[in-house]
Every structure is written in structure tokens, then in C-alpha cells.
């Protein structure tokens, strides 16, 4: 039993802004410690921003992440607008609605992406295929509105760069209508399936006290009973004019995180429908020219949680300091408590449950601690995770669950 093994997971994953390297210390089946190493893809964006003028920075920060690629430019614009006196005082009404619509469309596509990969990890490849199939029409909506499937280049200080055409509104409405049955399908598949429940419940628990101490944000916090959501706590865009709910669960396990994300997609559909219905006429850009000296803070509820930008201006046309904090920065650190104490077959799932990218785990290797000999690769670990699901299915068939 005391045969101690190191399991390194990582280091590269290209989808998210923070490639990670997880070194799991394992005794038998149990994870006893974890070392998280990041920085493999540090691009010095905060430093680069000091050499860009204010209008160039949105394009730069948009490239921090390809999945929540509108959250960073949005948070940056909010920070600059905070310096100018607040988004609501600067940005035209129509642009506020378009901003919120983009923000929520992005949440749907990001959560569907996560759901698909989580399904794949536990051996439910049908869920994977379905989730990604239904994600495609969402990306088509993005392409129609912004011209791009990702990295939308929609945000600028003082407004948005493209308008939503009247002809597009029925298409968007229909896309939302078509999405709801798909969400029903996922909700049913997850909530009613005894194997998924047995597999996800109790895995990778983050208690409420731990969530507070590790300062986690977004669905990771809300699944642990921490009732925070920037959209409600410090409303931005048109969100405070609309009716929607913050989804909070108490258990803090992978199941709770899954439920939070699935139910949030319904709220996003709801918000988008209200945006389309209430989209006011008018300008989409305030044409801001001068950024005075000062400092501002912008925060956006990205799909993974609060995305934070701090901007300082000395009155020139470039920021003297830009601080970016992506939500995963806080969430990934909490894996230190989430994964320790669990089994190795739950580790991939637990590390994935905070919604970092998954490519890292495909590079998982298991090393024997004494001679560093490789005993497992990434696919073996995923297979291990999928096998556990198969075993649960078998025991269910035999009535032993």
C-alpha cells in the first residue's frame, strides 16, 4: 500500500490561458498530495499591453483565451470605462444589450464544451458527441453576428464594433429555441442516470469553507454553496434589466459543478431571448477618444467565474499598468484540496471539474517514484476513469449499487 507513485499531468494545453502541470503523489489508489506548476505558456501579456495604445489592448487580451475570448476584452473595456465614469454612463443602450448577448452566448458554448469533455472522461462518449454537436449552432450564431467563431473582436471602449442586423434576430431566436430540447436532454441524462450520479457524486469535494479560503469564483464557488455572481453583484451590460437566476448548489462535488453549468445554460438562453426581445434602437459606439489619467477596475462573470482587469492610465494613449486575473487562476489552485484524498481514477475528473482545459490530461503520465519509470500514459488514465464507470454500470445491472 505504501508504494508511493508520482503522477505528472501536463504540461501543455493550448485551449486555455493557463497550461498546467499537475504532479500527483499517489499511494495505491489514493492521491495523497498534489503539486501544481503553471507558467508554461506565460506570454507576458500584461507587459505587452504597456506598449499598446488603449484601442489595441482589446485585441491583445482577447487572445488570452480562445474559449472565453470575449470576457477579457469586456473586462478590460469595463475597467477603462470605470476610469471614465462607469459603463452605464459611457456606453449606448443598444451596445449594452449586444454586450450581454455576446457574454451569454459565450457561456453556453463554453459550458457545452466542458460538458462534452466531462462526458468523454467518464466514458460517456455519446454525451461528448451530443454536447459538441449542439455547440456548433452556437458558434454559427457567433459567426453570423461577429464574423468569427472565436476571438470575436466585438468589444471596444465605449461600445461594440458590430451591430446585430434585424434579419439576424429571427435566426438567433430559432437557434435558442432549438437549443432548449438539447439542454433538456443533457439535464435528463445527468440527473436521471444512476451511473453518472454514482460516478460524480462525492468526487472531488470542495467544501464551502475551502471555497472561501481559496477565493474560488464562478461555477466552482457556486457548486460549493458560495452565492456569488458578478452579473448580479455588480451588474454590467443590460443584465440588470433582465430576469434570470443565479444557480447555487451546496455539495461541492463534481456532480454539483455539472448541475450548476447545465442549469446556467438555461438562464443564458433566457437572457439571450430577453436581449433579442428588448434590443433598443440607437448607436452602438460612444466614440471615446481620450483616456484621462486615473485607474479603473472591470469585472465580468466569465464562464469559469470572475474575470478581473485593472487598468492605470497616466493620461497618455497607453496604459501604464494592466493587471489581468483570469478565473482559473483562483480555481486551479483549489485543486490542491479538491483532488487530495480522492482516488486516482477520480483525479482527471476532479482536476477537470473546475473547467481548465483538458488537453493537459491527455498528456498524463504515471511515474514510479523510485526510478521515475513511466508506468502509465494519459490515455491509460482516461481509460482508468472510464473503466470505473463501466464497473459501476456492471454493479448496477447486478443490483449492487
Amino acid at each position, binding site marked *: 500500500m505504501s508504494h508511493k507513485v508520482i503522477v505528472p499531468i501536463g504540461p501543455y494545453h493550448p485551449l486555455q490561458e493557463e497550461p498546467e502541470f499537475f504532479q500527483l503523489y499517489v499511494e495505491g489508489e489514493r492521491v495523497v498530495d498534489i503539486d501544481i506548476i503553471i507558467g508554461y505558456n506565460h506570454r507576458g501579456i500584461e507587459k505587452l499591453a504597456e506598449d499598446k495604445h488603449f484601442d489595441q489592448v482589446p485585441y491583445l487580451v482577447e487572445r488570452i483565451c480562445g474559449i472565453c475570448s470575449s470576457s477579457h476584452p469586456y473586462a478590460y473595456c469595463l475597467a477603462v470605462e*470605470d476610469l471614465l465614469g462607469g459603463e452605464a454612463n459611457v456606453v449606448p443602450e443598444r451596445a449594452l444589450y449586444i454586450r450581454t448577448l455576446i457574454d451569454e452566448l459565450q457561456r453556453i458554448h463554453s459550458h457545452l464544451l466542458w460538458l462534452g469533455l466531462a462526458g468523454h472522461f467518464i466514458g460517456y462518449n455519446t454525451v461528448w458527441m451530443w454536447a459538441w454537436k449542439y455547440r456548433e449552432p452556437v458558434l454559427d450564431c457567433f459567426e453570423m453576428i461577429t464574423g468569427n467563431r472565436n476571438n470575436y473582436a466585438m468589444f471596444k471602449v465605449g461600445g461594440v464594433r458590430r451591430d446585430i442586423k434585424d434579419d439576424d434576430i429571427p435566426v438567433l431566436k430559432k437557434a435558442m429555441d432549438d437549443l432548449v430540447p438539447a439542454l433538456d436532454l443533457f439535464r435528463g441524462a445527468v440527473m436521471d442516470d444512476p451511473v453518472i450520479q454514482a460516478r460524480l457524486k462525492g468526487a472531488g469535494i470542495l467544501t464551502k469553507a475551502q471555497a472561501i*479560503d481559496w477565493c474560488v469564483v464562478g461555477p466552482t464557488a457556486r457548486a460549493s454553496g458560495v452565492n456569488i455572481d458578478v452579473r448580479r453583484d455588480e451588474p454590467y451590460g443590460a443584465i440588470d434589466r433582465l430576469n434570470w437566476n443565479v444557480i447555487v448548489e451546496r455539495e461541492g462535488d463534481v456532480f454539483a459543478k455539472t448541475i450548476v453549468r447545465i442549469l446556467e445554460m438555461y438562464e443564458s438562453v433566457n437572457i439571450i431571448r430577453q436581449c433579442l426581445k428588448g434590443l433598443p434602437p440607437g448607436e452602438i459606439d460612444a466614440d471615446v477618444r481620450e483616456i484621462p489619467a486615473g485607474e479603473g477596475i472591470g469585472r465580468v462573470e466569465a464562464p469559469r467565474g470572475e474575470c478581473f482587469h485593472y487598468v492605470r492610465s497616466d493620461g497618455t494613449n497607453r496604459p501604464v499598468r494592466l493587471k489581468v486575473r483570469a478565473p482559473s487562476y483562483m480555481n486551479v489552485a483549489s485543486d490542491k484540496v479538491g483532488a487530495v484524498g480522492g482516488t486516482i481514477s477520480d483525479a482527471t475528473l476532479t482536476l477537470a471539474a473546475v473547467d481548465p482545459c483538458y488537453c493537459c490530461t491527455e498528456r498524463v503520465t504515471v511515474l514510479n517514484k523510485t526510478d521515475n519509470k513511466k508506468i502509465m500514459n494519459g490515455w491509460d488514465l482516461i481509460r482508468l476513469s472510464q473503466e470505473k464507470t463501466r464497473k459501476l454500470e456492471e454493479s448496477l445491472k447486478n443490483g449492487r449499487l
Partner: protein
Amino acid sequence: MMIIKDAIRERLGNKIIAWEEKSSRRVYFTVAKEDILEAARLLFKELGLRFAIASGADTTEALEILYHFSYDKNGEFYSVRVLLRDKAHPEIDSLARLFPGAEWIEREIWEMLGIKFKGHPNLKRLLLAEDWPEGNYPLRRESS
């Protein structure tokens, strides 16, 4: 509802060197570096604010850290400013002793600006490569 602004001003008293309300939801206040643990304990442990992040900056006369705390019940945002004037040997108490959520950002500020965090449990590089030269802090002014 508890009025956080009043609670902070009352409890920290004359330890607040400067107080600025830039808008109804944005409060910036400055404390001496010796008082940062007390301020953070009050905000995080007693008043229940969430630690959002800290941001370091090199203003030419000093190194500056802003500790950002969010009061999520009403969206107020408190940024505690600390100025470290001794740029040759900047150091300050670590908040990671109070809550682990501060561990990573203190490592980052340490490697980017060269500010030492006293009492940090694991002050090693977070983002910079292993072969990045010692003593070269990329977010310092002299390094641009």
C-alpha cells in the same frame, strides 16, 4: 445590511493614510505596509470580503501593491494600497498565512517585481521560466 465602509474606517482608524471613493462601488485606501496583515484580517476574516487578487506596479518613486477585496453582497470593491519606498529591499508580510488564496499571486508579484513576502510558505517562481535570470524583474520600470 452592515455598512462595510463605516466598519473599515472605524476599525482601522488612523491607520488609514488615505481614503478615496472613486465611485459608489470603488473605494481605494492606503495603509502602511506594517498594517497590511491587520487590514486583510479585518476585511477577509471579520467582514467576510472575498480576496479577488492583488496587483503590483512600479510607480517611479515606489513599488506599489493593491490588494483587491470584493464585497459580493452589494458589489462594493475595496482596493487596499501599500507603497514600498525602499526599492532596493522591498518586503511585506505575506497574506498567505491568513488564507491560501493569496499564495499564487504573491509568488507572481515576487518574481515580476521582486517584492519579498515575509512568512510565505512556498515563495518560488510561478510563471517565469527556470532559466530566467535571477534579480531581473520584468515589471520593474528599469526592465522596459
